[in-house]
């Protein structure tokens, strides 16, 4: 699947057809491909920008939308002050602009409802984006696979997709949301106000009917290192844990 997909995914032009601010630092860009493609929840795309002198910059961004959503794909891009591509999106890009995109890419950090569960998702900051695609895929498929998301953000207003996640949590269809804020008190009874640790993982896993069969961890390198270690300390076998990291 991934081999065929990659071999058939040359660069193509995509058009920004909607822009939606998610948090002070994260904005969603909805892109209409000229060559629509199928993808799996958790996959990413490469985006390429070209300057008038021919210089090109490319970055990888995870897809936030569910494969069931249609042709338009959503990228939720965090603004990095010393970045090269994200400032373009945040400060320049407008509806109707075109950029180049290649994808879908990646065949490891992916989940389909047919892969089963229980599923434990652990995201830090914009690391929630590929996990959101999995959660939306699960909802779109009306899957009853038990799933829990432990989502670490600095403050309540930086919880990306907050209202949508809380709405999914309130459906009580086997998806549980656990928020942990590192710089503010918790707002909901089930939430925490500290960095992820093994005890939080043990307690979050108790929300699942049985131990997770798959765990996905995404975020900055520092976040993924400590969250993956917390999962191992909580008894999750290393072989069940898939990670995706960004940053230095």
């Amino acid at each position, binding site marked *: 699947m991934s081999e065929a997909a*990659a*071999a058939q995914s040359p660069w193509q032009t995509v058009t920004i057809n909607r822009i939606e601010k998610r948090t002070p630092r994260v904005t969603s860009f909805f892109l209409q491909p000229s060559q629509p493609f199928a993808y799996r929840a958790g996959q990413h795309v490469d985006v390429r920008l070209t300057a008038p002198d021919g210089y*090109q910059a490319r970055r990888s961004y995870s897809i936030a939308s569910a494969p069931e959503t249609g042709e338009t794909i959503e990228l939720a891009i965090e603004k990095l002050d010393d970045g090269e591509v994200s400032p*373009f999106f945040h400060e*320049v890009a407008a509806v109707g602009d075109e950029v180049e995109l290649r994808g879908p*890419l990646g065949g490891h950090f992916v989940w389909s409802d047919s892969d089963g569960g229980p599923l434990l998702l652990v995201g830090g900051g914009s690391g929630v984006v590929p996990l959101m695609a999995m959660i939306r895929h699960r909802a779109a498929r009306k899957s009853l696979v038990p799933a829990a998301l432990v989502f670490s953000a600095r403050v309540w207003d930086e919880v990306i997709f907050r209202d949508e996640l809380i709405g999914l949590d309130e459906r009580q269809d086997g998806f549980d949301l656990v928020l942990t804020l590192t710089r503010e008190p918790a707002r909901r009874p089930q939430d925490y106000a500290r960095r992820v640790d093994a005890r939080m993982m043990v307690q979050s896993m108790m929300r699942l009917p049985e131990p997770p069969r798959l765990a996905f961890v995404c975020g900055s390198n520092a976040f993924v290192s400590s969250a993956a270690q917390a999962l191992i300390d909580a008894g999750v076998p*290393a072989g069940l844990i*898939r990670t995706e990291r960004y940053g*230095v």
Partner: protein
Amino acid sequence: MVTRGFFSGRKPPTDTDARIPPGQYLEQGFPVLSAGPTPRVRTEEWSFTLKHGPRPIKKWNWAEFNALPMSKMTRDIHCVTAWTKFDTAWQGVLVDDILADAGLEPPTAFTLALSFDGYTTNVPTKDLTTGKAMVALLYEGKPITADHGGPARLLVPHLYFWKSAKWLNGLQFTERDEPGFWELRGYHIYGDPWREQRYTGDP
């Protein structure tokens, strides 16, 4: 296609342009990427095995491996996620010296690098020999940290860096070019950054 409103803000000075492969940017830090949790491999339990197919040819423990001839390599490295880092300084054992210690000529044209966490990656044998690759034990003079693949990682700097397997515990000669972990998941079978061979099917 020129992107409206995008200008080359971070373009490196021309004297280093020639060292940056197409589609890459210069990175000062050292990003960490891996498919799973970081294995903590203690040197007391570390070993390195040379295999021909399923058959072990020779196995070294940490002390024996450290007694092999040490070489230094300072090279630019290129990650498929588009960062390039200049002048990374490594120290370790050339694959040539491992083969010499085993009294072995390369028996096949293909090699699979094997890691403690089950990761594998394939490299043609000729890309590992004649001074092109080493099993690195030190980075900038210090033991390689677990995040960066310590105690020992493969270093094949002329290919995209996923070929430089972390937490290495062996090299296996194979009759055919056997795709490894990422090569089975959409990444290029060879991975030459200068030809921009990132994904399966790239020329």
